[in-house]
């Protein structure tokens, strides 16, 4: 997984509450079993003029020239709510989004970000609004710097905001670590738990077809 340490990039405001994963990647845009080929469907319902079409809607923020190449999104509360589809994060990452700054994230989406090297940075609504205002002041480039070591977002105008992220998530992102590899280091403890638990809760441990009842 790609590590995340510090990023300076164009930031695009998408300041609506409850942007759901059907908006991020509509069902109809998930055309294959795998994790690739999803960037084109990102925000398809908002990004294109027609449902199912590919003609860009010039009003949509990511289609505006000044936000070309955006790698950071500034969003409203409860970003990524709805379906657990990890395709939402795969689509964002494939498009090039590396960090999302929002007051809150839906829990499954937040986890999916961390497992794919995308930073979900929690920042109070007032601070997100102030960053969005700063992007539009006409005096600076529309970019931000996100520093995961320090947990800070820096505006081009010199403003600094501290964001929140769980410590384990921060470490995983900084290291680009694979969670399964880390967990398998605890293999002995997992085995010991299972041995104890089989005695305590035998009904949990199914025997397989033909002898379903423990």
């Amino acid at each position, binding site marked *: 997984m790609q590590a995340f340490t510090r990023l300076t990039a164009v930031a695009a405001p998408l300041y609506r509450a409850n942007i759901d994963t059907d908006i991020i990647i509509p069902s109809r845009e998930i055309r294959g079993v795998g994790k690739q080929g999803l960037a084109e469907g990102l925000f398809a319902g908002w990004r294109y003029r027609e449902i199912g079409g590919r003609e860009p809607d010039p009003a949509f923020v990511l289609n505006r020239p000044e936000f070309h190449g955006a790698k950071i999104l500034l969003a409203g509360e409860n970003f990524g709510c709805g379906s657990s589809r990890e395709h939402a994060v795969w689509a964002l990452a494939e498009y090039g989004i590396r960090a999302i700054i929002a007051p809150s994230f839906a829990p499954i989406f937040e986890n*999916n970000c961390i497992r794919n090297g995308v930073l979900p940075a929690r920042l109070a609504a007032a601070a997100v609004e102030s960053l969005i205002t700063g992007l539009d002041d006409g005096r600076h480039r529309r970019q931000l710097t996100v520093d995961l070591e320090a947990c800070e977002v820096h505006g081009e105008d010199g403003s600094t905001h501290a964001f929140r992220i769980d410590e384990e998530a921060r470490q995983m992102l900084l290291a680009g670590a694979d969670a399964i590899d880390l967990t398998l280091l605890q293999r002995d403890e997992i085995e010991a738990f299972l041995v104890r638990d089989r005695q305590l809760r035998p009904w949990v441990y199914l025997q397989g077809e033909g002898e*379903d009842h423990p």
Partner: protein
Amino acid sequence: MSAAAPLSLLDKLWASHLIRELPGGTALLAIDRVMLHERTGAVALQSLATAGRSVLDPRRAFCTMDHVVDTRPGRGDATLMAGGEAFISATRSAARDAGIRLFDVDDPDQGIVHVISPELGIVLPGLTLVCPDSHTCTQGAFGALAWGIGSTEAEHALATGTLRMRRPRSLRVTLTGTTGPGVTAKDLALALITRYGADGGSGAVLEFCGPAVTAMDMAQRMTLCNMATEFAAVSALIAPDERALGWLQGRRYAPVGETWKRAVDAWRQLASDPEAHFDAEWSLDTTEVAPMVTWGTSPEQAVAVDAAVPREPRPGRPTESYQRALHYMGLQPGQTLTGLPLDAAFIGSCTNSRLEDLRRAARVLRGRRVAPGLRAICVPGSTRVRREAEAEGLHEVFLAAGFEWREAGCSMCFFAGGEHFGTQERVISSTNRNFESRQGPATRTHLASPETVAASAVAGCITDPRPLLH
């Protein structure tokens, strides 16, 4: 020695699955069951195999076909969606290779994952169960800690039998009073989400309790827990009582004999202690709740069926979200919802597709017909529900009323199989999400209970079901 500290149900479930605390405030938690479906399961199994990893204990993982599979009568593997068959065939081979029991398209136990898991006794009280599907919280109705995850987390659970997780906060939701006729768990869930917001339960495990919960049958409890993800909650729980235990006894994967007795003894301990600490508390007097219907594009945008669309955005929400929702739904501030003409009605989904849901809708439909020109569809949640409904003649009620009677699956809850409602069509739906384009391109979804959907289908417009229940 002082008495043991009082524990919440979540505390007890957490403690019994805790393998160890990890640095950074997370824990390594044992996962008892993994459920998969063809939409997000095949990709997890394929990715796992590509990484050269195997499933730790395939006997504790199960897979079904529900999301992509067609629901039109006489279906096979073919779907309206181009490429849909690939999800089905990839899931079939990935499940076989991994040694996981698959409830295939033609299996008598096939159905929506959160409907079949309880039917088969795969979920049991006190278990941890995960599935790459946000509505996994449904299964918390049996006192299991069950929650939705992504595909990568599913790989982790399959490969290691564990997940790394931060302890969720606990939130007790006490439902008092007695619901009036025609007011269901769906209406209570919409009332709660509207009151507390679509992010009101963020990061929490809700525990539903109180007399109104005790009075609910298991189908209603599952509906209530199903909607927990629409508060951004991690999951929901209801302490298992005799009704829950009786419901599970004899199910295929439930224990039998002495093991059942031992399990029941353990499960009777699965309740929050009287003085247990909760991080937050909500309460709702259900006597005051009317049948609810959504007007916007988030489940938090709901009102009583006889009320008007709010004239103001929700406090603290960007005005743009409110205006966009009104525009998308083709509504004006202050507009009354009752009487709004409909193009279609849908009864189904993991929220409201169980036998009891269909019985309640059929009570409204018996001897009535849907309005001319309105398309009405009923999709049972599982092949078993369909079979049992047909055994009591419910399909005849639906068909005589002008409803389509389908094979089991998720169907047009989100048109993953390629079937959908039309552009800007207005649909009343017993599903869980009124998101933009969820049920079709620019389709306008109004969420409601099966009763309200049935009554509205008959009237051809959004309608209070209560007068039709007498």
